[in-house]
């Protein structure tokens, strides 16, 4: 048999690399802007499109799907071709994948600031973009499996299994968590409600971390780290164990995001148990990575790329140790809703994803441009700026998290809340938030220096768009010796590998999701809980549009410190009409589950106009545009109909008269405001948001009064 000549496609790798750098800078800059708004609300530029609630999802989407997403495709397209000794299956599909993904990101940049959002974290994009993501993901899958099929290497290296598991699991997660009922081109309602929606969301949310931020990066680690250190992975057997146990266990861990909520207790316990078990495969992977450098630690002293890898892996180890600890109920009761979680995710994102991405870029770009890195000194500067940036980011956030949580839980000797005003705790941690932005700024500076360094590197070299390679073709299958173990056989059967990975992730998904989705006794109903009025429903959609749930939770946990502060703890039956659920995951401001009737309408009006009028020192942005913008009531009928389709018991034909009720309720609020000398027309958005806020928790209060 003669060796075959072929060419690796480096141009697509370069394109994804440039996209990674550009979107990285954009996503982190938006993050910095959002961080500054948490101590200086005026930094929203007095503009609704750049206010925290709308740009925080833009930041998370940009860094996860644009920065990390493009980095994944860069690393996969480079390593897949070389591990399979084949060019990508189709240049056309590679191009469609690249441009399609960039268009999806651009549509996110356009729609999120406009307030088109589902409000579900890391799945905020509306339904047309969800469909586009599905199509482009399929294009990626066809291109990957096409390459695998025409490969010149019989066995699939462990990195490729991680890519296959990533592909199939993200597809499942994305589809299940995006089942929405469209109302208009950019508005939809989730089919799930309340507790069920929360469970699906965090099954998705946690596994977006697992299968978008972790498994593809582990695959790339298993390829790039041996290349960088010029030695094979420490233990290939450990990598196999790592792979199967990680994908098996990770899928179960989602409910640890919902501890002490109304999610059934058994689901919470299941999430905790598997989260703790996750330490084993996660650390197995980290140790396998670090020990790959055995005998090469002297190289780490001089080689900045290895430095990035070592700190990246260490950050992975810290985050994956901290994750299981955070899932312990006792720890979670302090950490959840606080800045501790923000610190935790940023150790993972900045350390693990960021540093591995930088290492890959520094390693790849000079190679595909057949040149040396422009400046090792600048790369070294980037390493130190990045490391210090992470420390200056994370330490103040840990400090802020502990401080605020403990303050919120503190009682006086008389049994009263020591800090009954939530704002006191916010003001206490403002210096920490300032320091966090400094840390983020240092990290971003390092990335900008990297961009300069890499663009100069590209300029001094020239891209080898098609890199010549040679390999023996695959021998016909009948000449291959019978495999001695079934896993060895599996390593050369990609489709079976994908099906098995799918089965493994579906086991946990089914066991965990199905009972809550199908058994009604898991969600006890409450007779006094009624559907939202049309005006409240419109107000709720404004709450979603403004991203209020980024800072305010709507679920009271059964702690005395919370029931004293907010009111009765939440019940599952309260949320049965909530498409989507709005529990939130962070309390930058107080919980709003029992907000109804706590203050008068005039208080809310003035507070939305300028929060500092009512709460001096508040960091909430002013929503003055809601005072002047007209509420769009043309959508009311469609919304009522959609809700009825989803099982909300609006009477047949109610959609036709809903706006009449909406007007009546608005008129009442306007008259009430007039009594406080506030003149406002009833068709303004502020009226709807007041109606919604005044409704929160009222069903339970009504229940108590009736009893």
């Amino acid at each position, binding site marked *: 048999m003669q060796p075959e000549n072929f060419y690796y496609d480096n141009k697509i790798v370069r394109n994804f690399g440039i996209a990674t750098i550009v979107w990285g800078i954009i996503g982190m800059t938006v993050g910095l802007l959002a961080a500054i708004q948490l101590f200086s609300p005026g930094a929203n530029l007095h503009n609704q499109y750049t206010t925290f609630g709308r740009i925080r999802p833009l930041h998370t989407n940009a860094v996860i799907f644009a920065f990390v997403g493009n980095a994944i495709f860069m690393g996969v397209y480079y390593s897949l071709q070389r591990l399979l000794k084949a060019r990508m299956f189709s240049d056309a599909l590679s191009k469609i994948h690249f441009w399609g993904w960039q268009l999806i990101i651009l549509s996110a940049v356009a729609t999120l600031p406009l307030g088109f959002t589902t409000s579900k974290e890391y799945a905020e994009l509306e339904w047309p973009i969800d469909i586009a993501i599905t199509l482009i993901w399929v294009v990626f899958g066809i291109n990957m499996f096409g390459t695998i099929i025409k490969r010149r290497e*019989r066995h699939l290296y462990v990195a490729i299994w991680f890519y296959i598991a990533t592909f199939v699991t993200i597809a499942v997660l994305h589809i299940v968590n995006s089942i929405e009922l469209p109302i208009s081109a950019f508005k939809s309602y989730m089919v799930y409600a309340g507790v069920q929606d929360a469970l699906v969301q965090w099954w998705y949310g946690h596994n977006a971390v697992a299968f978008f931020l972790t498994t593809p990066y582990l695959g790339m680690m298993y390829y790039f780290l041996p290349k960088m250190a010029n030695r094979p*992975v420490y233990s290939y057997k450990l990598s196999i*164990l790592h792979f199967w146990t990680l994908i098996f266990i990770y899928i179960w861990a989602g409910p640890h995001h919902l501890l002490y909520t109304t999610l059934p207790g*058994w689901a919470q*316990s299941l999430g905790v*148990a598997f989260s703790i078990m996750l330490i084993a495969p996660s650390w197995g992977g980290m140790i396998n990575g670090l020990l790959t450098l055995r005998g090469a630690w002297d190289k780490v002293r001089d080689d900045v790329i290895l430095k990035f890898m070592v700190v990246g892996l260490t950050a992975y180890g810290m985050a994956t140790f901290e994750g299981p600890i955070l899932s312990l109920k006792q720890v979670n009761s302090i950490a959840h809703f606080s800045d501790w979680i923000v610190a935790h995710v940023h150790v993972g994102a900045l350390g693990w994803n960021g540093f591995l991405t930088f290492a890959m870029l520094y390693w790849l770009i000079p190679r595909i441009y057949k040149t040396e890195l422009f400046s090792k000194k600048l790369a070294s500067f980037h390493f130190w700026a990045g490391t210090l940036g992470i420390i200056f980011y994370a330490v103040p956030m840990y400090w802020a998290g502990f401080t605020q949580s403990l303050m919120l839980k503190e009682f006086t000797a008389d049994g009263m809340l020591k800090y009954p005003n939530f704002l006191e705790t916010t003001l206490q941690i403002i210096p920490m938030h300032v320091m966090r932005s400094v840390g983020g700024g240092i990290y971003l500076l390092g990335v900008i220096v990297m961009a300069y360094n890499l663009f100069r590197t590209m300029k001094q070299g020239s891209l080898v768009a098609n890199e010549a390679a040679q*390999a023996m073709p695959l021998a016909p299958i009948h000449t291959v010796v019978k495999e001695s*173990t079934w896993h*060895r056989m599996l390593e050369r059967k990609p489709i079976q590998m994908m099906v098995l990975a799918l089965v493994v992730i579906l086991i946990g998904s089914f*066991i965990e999701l199905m009972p809550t989705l199908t058994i009604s006794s898991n969600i006890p109903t409450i007779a006094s809980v009624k559907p939202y009025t049309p005006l409240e429903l419109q107000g709720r959609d404004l709450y979603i549009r403004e991203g209020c749930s980024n800072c305010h939770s709507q679920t009271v946990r059964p702690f005395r410190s919370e029931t004293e502060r907010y009111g009765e703890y939440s019940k599952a039956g309260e949320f049965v009409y909530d498409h989507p659920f709005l529990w939130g995951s962070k309390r930058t401001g107080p919980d709003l589950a029992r907000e109804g009737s706590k203050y008068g309408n005039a208080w809310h009006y003035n507070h939305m106009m300028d929060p500092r009028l009512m709460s001096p020192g508040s960091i909430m942005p002013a929503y003055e545009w809601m005072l002047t913008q007209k509420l769009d009531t043309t959508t009311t009928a469609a919304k009522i109909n959609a809700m009825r389709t989803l099982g909300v018991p609006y009477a047949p034909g109610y959609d036709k008269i809903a706006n009449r009720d909406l007007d009546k309720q608005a008129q009442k609020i306007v008259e009430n405001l007039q009594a406080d000398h506030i003149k406002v027309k009833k068709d303004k958005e502020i009226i709807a948001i007041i109606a919604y806020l005044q409704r929160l928790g009222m069903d339970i209060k009504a229940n108590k009064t009736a009893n």
Partner: protein
Amino acid sequence: MFKQFTENISAHQGYLLFSLGIFFVFFVVIAVMLYLMPKKHVDAMSDLPLVDSDDTETTNRF
């Protein structure tokens, strides 16, 4: 001693143990498989990233 456990387990805890059991079986299967895997194959697989494109060494023959 076991009576103590079996009598005090509620349906929910049984659910947890069942899930743990599935994982345990899964883990044992992988462990056995890894034990049986020949060293020659493992070495060849772990060398895959280090084999340059112009090198004709592959795992195809193993």
